[in-house]
């Protein structure tokens, strides 16, 4: 009995010790920078294994030049949203993360003191990004990240379908109405759209409103100086209500998810699709026809692209190796990395890129040139609302646009709900 008791006690102690002990990190550290030779880079789930492989190959170049190994870890966005703060607080958390730049994303982390202040690093390393992009990662006067990629939101169109119907790419809202009527009459869905995921609805508002009120008007709204119940907002929502009621967005768009929406366009079922520049990658892979990309039309003239920042690299305040992490960010801020991301990920770096000599789709080259011109003062860029507003507002906007498209709310009611959420 005594020996069996000892065995039991020993087993219980071992079990307890195992349960209470965290997973030990391997030599070099599972994270937290550890010994300065290895960094953990946490990113949102990449599209496929090939994307991961390309990123790892690219980071191998960094390792070769710096001697710092980078371990890429992935999490799907919902999990990342849930566990990121906990992981950043942990001793073995990631050193560098790729995360959104909006107030609900990097802004919240910066406010909680979870991000490393990069203000000095910007000066020391001479990182060049568009001014407005740098502003988006600046909170309380401190810069916390390098904007990773830019996104514009506008209207893609199938050049062949429009040419066959004798339609020019729409420049005004009336042009768009006429085009939708003609396309519809030809038995083709005018605009592929799906709002089951709720966030695509915000792009409808972002593009229509950016074109209607311009950059200044959007800045006023986003800063709380304008009212979300203003006639311009209501009008922008009313256009989409009209489009839905006329069947220009296809059948029951709220039942359709984003993948089905893009499939409708790629299969030729729809002639246009209102979405963002990230779609160029899908076009390159899945479309056997040529597409054009224009800003969403304004009520009385040519519109502007709504622009936003996607995820970008940020450094954890708890990293044990800030120098190594800054070196990695320096790599991400380089022109070479910008060109690599254009060629391999079809993304738009937030810095000027010389497209000559790059192996990229003509449409992407056009977008890069447009963005470069617009960002450097050659015109206006609007704003993609959901990356800049708090989640409570976004939820009101997402729900409101779904309610608009299902006939549960009027444009004025949706606008009022957004205004209330903006002041909450």
């Amino acid at each position, binding site marked *: *009995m005594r020996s069996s008791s000892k065995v039991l006690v020993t087993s219980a102690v071992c079990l307890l010790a195992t349960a209470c002990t965290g997973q030990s990190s391997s030599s070099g550290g599972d994270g937290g920078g550890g010994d300065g030779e290895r960094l953990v880079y946490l990113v949102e789930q990449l599209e496929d294994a090939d994307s991961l492989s390309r990123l790892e190959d690219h980071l191998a170049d960094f390792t070769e030049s710096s001697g710092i190994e980078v371990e890429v870890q992935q999490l799907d966005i919902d999990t990342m949203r849930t566990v990121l703060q906990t992981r950043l607080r942990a001793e073995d958390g990631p050193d560098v993360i790729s995360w959104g730049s909006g107030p609900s994303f990097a802004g919240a982390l910066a406010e*909680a003191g979870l991000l490393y202040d990069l203000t000095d690093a910007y000066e020391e390393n001479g990182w060049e990004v568009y001014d407005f992009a740098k502003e988006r990662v600046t909170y309380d006067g401190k810069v916390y990240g390098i904007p990773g990629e830019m996104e514009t939101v506008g209207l893609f169109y199938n050049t062949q379908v429009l040419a066959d119907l004798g339609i020019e790419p729409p420049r005004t809202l009336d042009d768009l109405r006429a085009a939708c009527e003609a396309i519809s009459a030809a038995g083709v869905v005018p605009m592929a759209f799906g709002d*089951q995921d709720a966030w695509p609805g915000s792009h409808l508002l972002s593009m229509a409103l950016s074109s209607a009120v311009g950059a200044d008007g959007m800045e006023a709204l986003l800063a709380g100086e304008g009212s979300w119940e203003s006639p311009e907002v209501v009008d922008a929502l009313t256009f989409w209500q009209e489009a839905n009621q006329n069947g220009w967005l*296809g059948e029951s768009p709220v039942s*359709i*998810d984003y993948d089905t929406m893009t499939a409708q366009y790629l299969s030729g079922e729809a002639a246009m699709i209102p979405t963002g520049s990230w779609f160029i990658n899908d076009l390159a892979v899945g479309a056997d026809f040529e597409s054009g990309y224009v800003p969403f039309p304004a009520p009385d003239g040519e519109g502007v692209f709504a622009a936003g920042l996607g995820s970008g690299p940020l450094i954890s305040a708890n990293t044990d190796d800030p120098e190594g992490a800054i070196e990695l960010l320096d790599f991400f801020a380089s022109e070479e990395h910008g060109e690599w991301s254009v060629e391999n990920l079809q993304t738009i770096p937030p810095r000027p890129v010389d497209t000559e000599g790059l192996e990229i789709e003509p449409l992407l080259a056009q977008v890069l040139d447009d963005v470069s011109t617009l960002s450097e003062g050659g015109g206006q860029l609007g704003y993609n609302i959901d990356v800049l507003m708090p989640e409570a507002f976004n939820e009101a906007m997402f729900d409101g646009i779904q*309610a608009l498209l*299902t006939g549960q709310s009027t444009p004025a009611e949706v606008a009022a709900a957004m205004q209330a959420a903006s002041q909450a």
Partner: protein
Amino acid sequence: MTAAPAPAAAPTVPGPRRGRRARSGVSEATRRQQARLGVLLVAPAVVLMSVFLVFPVLNAVYYVFVDFDGLDTTPPFVGLDNFTELARDRDMWAAAWNNVIWIVLGTIGPLVLGLAMALLLWGVRRGSTFYRVVFFLPYVLPQVAVGVVWGWIYAPTRGWLNRGLEAVGLGGLARGWLGDPHTALYAVLGTAIWTATGFVFVIVLAALRNVAAELVDAAMLDGASYLQRLRYVVLPQIMPVFLMVTALTLIGGFAVFDIVFVMTGGGPANATEVLGTYAYSNAFQLSRISYGTTLALVVTALAVPVAVWLNRLQRRASTEGLGA
């Protein structure tokens, strides 16, 4: 502490060298050793329960009384504010109403269908295993996969449901099932019922196999109709199992989350929001951890009494000699 007085006239019994022998014939030393062994045996379970159940529950109770946003390590104490807000939250009541619909239809549907299918296949011997596997399969499939596949079935233009309706001349009923606020909840519920029916079917069929056939035969000889035999002979015998299945299905209705989250995310415009998805959305999308926790605790608090009541009913049915 005072020592317990020794029995005044306890007979002296020759015992082992140390300690006295208890009435059961087991010495006190052995009893102490057994007690220690017992403690050691349950210790791992107690530790695991404490770490993974008691501590999280206590932690959740703590969060209910503070305003934690997931970032602030010292959240302010807010007392009962979360409960006050909850009581006034119209979206919460809308979600709770959807839960009520879910609990009622999501419990009755699988029970009725599962029982009916089990009764149909009760006397069937040939191919019985095949039917059980086929009908049980939806229950063991991952809810995410089920949700995705049924999403395709409900799709407005290419979905099989609308195509089927058009094929039989009911094209007027075709619609975007998951995008229409009037049908979305019932469409998701239909999927959930399809999933749960197989579970009820298998359990009830197993219970029916143990029903005393001679009682059914006797009732038949006495002239009892099919429904009378079912009501007075069969159902009482399978009642404990039936109540157990009812309890599991009903509690599932309180805690429903995954299938709704996958198929609609609570939309369109909150039309399919249930307390589970509403709690998730508050906790992890709006970073209102405390409010989300309060909602989750309320769901638990609502489910527990129902579970206890059904458990008592089941035990009573068992002790009354009923049961398969």
